[in-house]
């Protein structure tokens, strides 16, 4: 017959007994601690429940009051505290708040190895959490203590040492202190130990060398034969996690000091090992994806090797499995994005792979932010192909609609990723970009171009600039009506030069095409033209000046009225002192070839000898010193500049030789 549960079996009952045991002592302590530990091991809910009921301070109180001779009680206390700290940040916080830390440290110097082991295990649990206190490597005694831990023959103690490093070593200086103190060598020695020691050691090793070429050069490179050889050997280890950790170390070495991993053989081998690990559908596989992604990022040669190793086929196949975890999807998209960042062949294969584009676009609405961002970046890089854009692969409702939707996302990182993707998709190359315009995309781009967040603002303007590229007259008008004159003027004068550059690129595209387009710059008494002219005199970033100069160049390709307006802007002085040279002369003298090119093109347009005012313009330019400046440039080191200078001089001289 089932009876009612005794109050002592309920958490409240256990807590009651724990408190009284803490006060009374004796055998009861051991029994209740064991019972508590058995209940919470591997059970997050129970851990949280007992934490809430205040169990942790009672356990710590038993530990603090226990005589150092009652070894089994010390072991039980440490084990229970370790369980509370294992995998639950709230547990780590409760343990630390209850003051357990110094007591656990004391256990490490106990004469009984079992006590030391239990203390080290509990501390290791604490250091595996982000909530753990930061270890101060700048104190010599702390370094000595750390080395003493790594020197011990106990795998939990050495593991604790490794965990302290992995948790607390963050800065370049900390890495150097540890490396110079011989910690790296200790870790290398541990690679010969048990699997646990090896893995913990590899993790710490990766932390110390991360982004630190100095440490790598001194301690790790191929000239340190043992270290290098051990790492390479461990990529073949029988345990997947060890193989992964060895690959992580080698990846970090390559990323910080590329010269150490130039061998195509080793590079290929590493890619193949990581690809094999991807088959593991657990944490190792997920981490392998991110490691491979980091390994090939920014290096086209490595991307080619990964491509030749059939990475895309494998990932596209895996992507089609149903109900993939968010981390897995994010990892797959991240690798595909890296592969497609440079290689056209990769883009084509992704696009040809059955359902790949559909899976990527479906993931744009995933509930996890990181997946939405990764899918967006992947789509952005697949669409870096002029060939695929021109074929119209992306300007479809299935692709455009979810991307536009992401422009309204509550996460800024998603918005920025979506804006970057839109920037590519809208290049499109078809003059009538109706789908994007009709779908409300322009309205939201314009809205985001007013954002206080400069990266949102920058990418929104960037997208508008690309949208304006070779657009037809009607769409151009619609887009301009949405942006409006005054906000566009503000963007041209934005406090962020990168925003200015894109805004001026937008204006440049606006006034390109049919001749009538130039009139956009002359509305409201030439407000936009005057603003561009002002920036030409004020800005210092060459890219801003190049774009501003091309706006002037495009306007100068108009009729007499437009040419005269440009003359007025360019012959203004850069300061109020009339003795200074005009802005066009200073820009022709720029060290930046692309800026000189833009400036000379403008002069070419202004000196075309067919217009009624051509002669007067040439005279004005000569008087402003432009012609003599051009003569100084006839042997310009930039071929493009040199050729345009000859054209401009040739045109100027159709009215006579001004050399005298």
């Amino acid at each position, binding site marked *: 017959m089932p009876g009612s549960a005794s109050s002592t079996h309920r958490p409240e009952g256990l807590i009651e007994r724990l408190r009284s045991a803490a006060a009374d002592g004796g055998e009861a302590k051991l029994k209740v601690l064991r019972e508590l530990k058995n209940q919470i091991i591997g059970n997050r809910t129970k851990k949280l429940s007992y934490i809430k009921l205040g169990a942790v301070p009672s356990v710590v109180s038993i530990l603090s009051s226990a005589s150092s001779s009652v070894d089994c009680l010390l072991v039980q206390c440490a084990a229970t505290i370790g369980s509370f700290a294992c995998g639950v940040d709230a547990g780590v916080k409760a343990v630390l708040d209850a003051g357990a830390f110094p007591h656990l440290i004391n256990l490490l110097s106990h004469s009984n190895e079992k006590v030391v082991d239990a203390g080290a295990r509990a501390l290791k649990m604490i250091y595996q959490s982000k909530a753990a206190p930061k270890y101060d490597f700048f104190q010599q005694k702390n370094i000595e203590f750390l080395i003493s831990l790594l020197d011990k023959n106990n795998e939990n103690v050495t593991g604790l040492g490794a965990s302290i490093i992995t948790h607390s070593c963050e800065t370049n200086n900390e890495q150097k202190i540890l490396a110079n103190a011989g910690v790296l060598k200790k870790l290398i020695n541990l690679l010969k130990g048990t699997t646990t020691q090896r893995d913990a050691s590899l993790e710490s090793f990766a932390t110390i060398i991360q982004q630190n070429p100095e440490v790598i050069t001194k301690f790790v490179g191929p000239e340190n034969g043992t270290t290098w050889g051990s790492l390479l050997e461990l990529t073949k280890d029988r345990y997947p996690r060890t193989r992964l950790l060895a690959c992580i170390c080698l990846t970090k070495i390559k990323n910080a000091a590329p010269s150490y991993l130039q061998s195509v053989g080793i590079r290929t081998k590493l890619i193949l090992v990581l690809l094999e690990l991807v088959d593991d559908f657990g944490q190792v596989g997920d981490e392998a994806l991110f490691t491979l992604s980091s390994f090939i990022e920014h290096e086209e040669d490595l991307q080619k090797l990964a491509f030749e190793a059939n990475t895309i086929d494998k990932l596209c196949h895996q992507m089609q499995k149903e109900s993939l975890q968010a981390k897995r999807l994010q990892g797959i998209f991240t690798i595909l994005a890296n592969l497609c960042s440079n290689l056209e062949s990769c883009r084509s294969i992704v696009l040809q792979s059955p359902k790949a584009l559909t899976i990527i676009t479906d993931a744009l609405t995933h509930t996890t932010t990181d997946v939405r961002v990764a899918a967006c970046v992947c789509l*952005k890089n697949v*669409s*870096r192909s*002029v*060939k695929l854009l*021109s*074929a119209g692969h992306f300007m479809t409702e299935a692709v455009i609609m979810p991307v536009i939707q992401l422009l309204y996302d509550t996460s800024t990182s998603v918005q920025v990723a979506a804006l*970057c*993707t839109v*920037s*590519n998709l809208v*290049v499109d*190359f078809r003059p009538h970009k109706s789908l994007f315009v009709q779908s409300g995309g322009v309205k939201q781009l314009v809205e985001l171009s007013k954002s206080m967040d400069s990266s949102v603002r920058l*990418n929104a303007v*960037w997208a508008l*600039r*690309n949208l304006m*590229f*070779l657009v037809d007259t009607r769409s151009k008008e619609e887009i301009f009506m949405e942006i409006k004159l005054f906000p566009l003027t503000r963007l041209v004068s934005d406090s962020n030069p990168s925003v200015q550059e894109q805004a001026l*690129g937008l204006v*440049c*595209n606006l*006034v*390109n*095409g*049919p*001749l009538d387009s130039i009139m956009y710059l002359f509305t409201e008494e030439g407000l936009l033209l005057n603003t561009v002219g002002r920036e030409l005199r004020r800005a210092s970033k060459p890219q801003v000046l190049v774009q501003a100069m*091309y706006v002037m*160049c*495009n306007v*100068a*390709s*108009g*009729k007499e009225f437009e*040419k005269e307006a440009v003359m007025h802007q360019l012959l203004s002085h850069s300061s109020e002192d009339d003795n200074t040279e005009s802005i066009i002369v200073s820009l022709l003298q720029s060290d930046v070839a*692309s800026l000189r*090119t833009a400036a000379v*093109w403008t002069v*070419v*347009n202004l000196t*075309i*000898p*067919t*217009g009624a005012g051509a002669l007067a313009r040439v005279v004005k330019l000569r008087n402003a010193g432009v012609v003599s400046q051009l*003569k100084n440039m*006839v*042997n310009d080191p*930039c*071929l*493009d500049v040199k*050729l*345009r200078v*000859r*054209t401009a*001089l*040739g045109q100027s*001289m*159709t009215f006579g*030789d001004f*050399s005298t």
Partner: protein
Amino acid sequence: MAEVYESERKKDNLEEAEEAVVADGDGVSVAVKKAAQTRRTLNPGRLNWGDARRVVSESHSRYRQNFLDTVKMPVRMVESPAPSNSSGANHGQTCLQPCSLLSVGQAFSGTQNVSSPQKDEAWRVNVRIQGCDLNHGYLCGTMEALNVPMADTPVVTFWEGEIVDTKNHTFFTNKWKATSEVDIEHWTKFPSFSPLLSQVEVDGGKSLDLSNYQYIFMRWKEQYFVNVGADCGLTIAGFYYVCFSCVDGSINGYYYDPNSSPFQKLELKTTNEGRSGFSFSSYELQ
């Protein structure tokens, strides 16, 4: 692009033989005759080469005519250097310098002479540069043929270009059915190629430094039809040998396809869309 020349030629031969065969009362020949009649209907007013040239030249302003006029200048100019032989560490590794007339958005118009021994014909052609990546020696864009006799609408193709920069690509094609002899045969048709010939014969031009040369050599290969199906009666099996002048943006090219009329000449000049000068546009992929 070109007409499917080989099969056309076969049809023409059949056309000539048609009368004789018809006299035999052969059923097959009747079908051939019908096909020939259909073809005549599809190819109404063919534009001849001279007409096409006139159309193009009229589209250019007087300014264009004067654009390259030699003007005696009172300054000493270093004349355009002949391409040099690079040596040592720089061996053929220099990218070409950007040329603003060959940048994205730039448009060109002109003709492609598609004349064959049987007919005199030229198509009006528009080209627009859509992408340019000098680091990879890559260029791409669209080509629009306007008065193709067998098509109802202008035919647009997307092409990709290999820029001969001696780093990514040499003068030797090594594909598309082009041997080095075919390459030399086509390149030598450009006068600006002659200073390069001797070196190209040795190593395809690998050791040449073209970074300061006023001409850019390319191969343009059409990849797909943009607005019509692949069964439009035109072929894009061949490719163009192209020479671009950085001085004035003019483009000359020769279409090569073993199955089409040899040496179909492409002649293009920059267009300015009614402007009195040059205008530029740009985009940046992220």
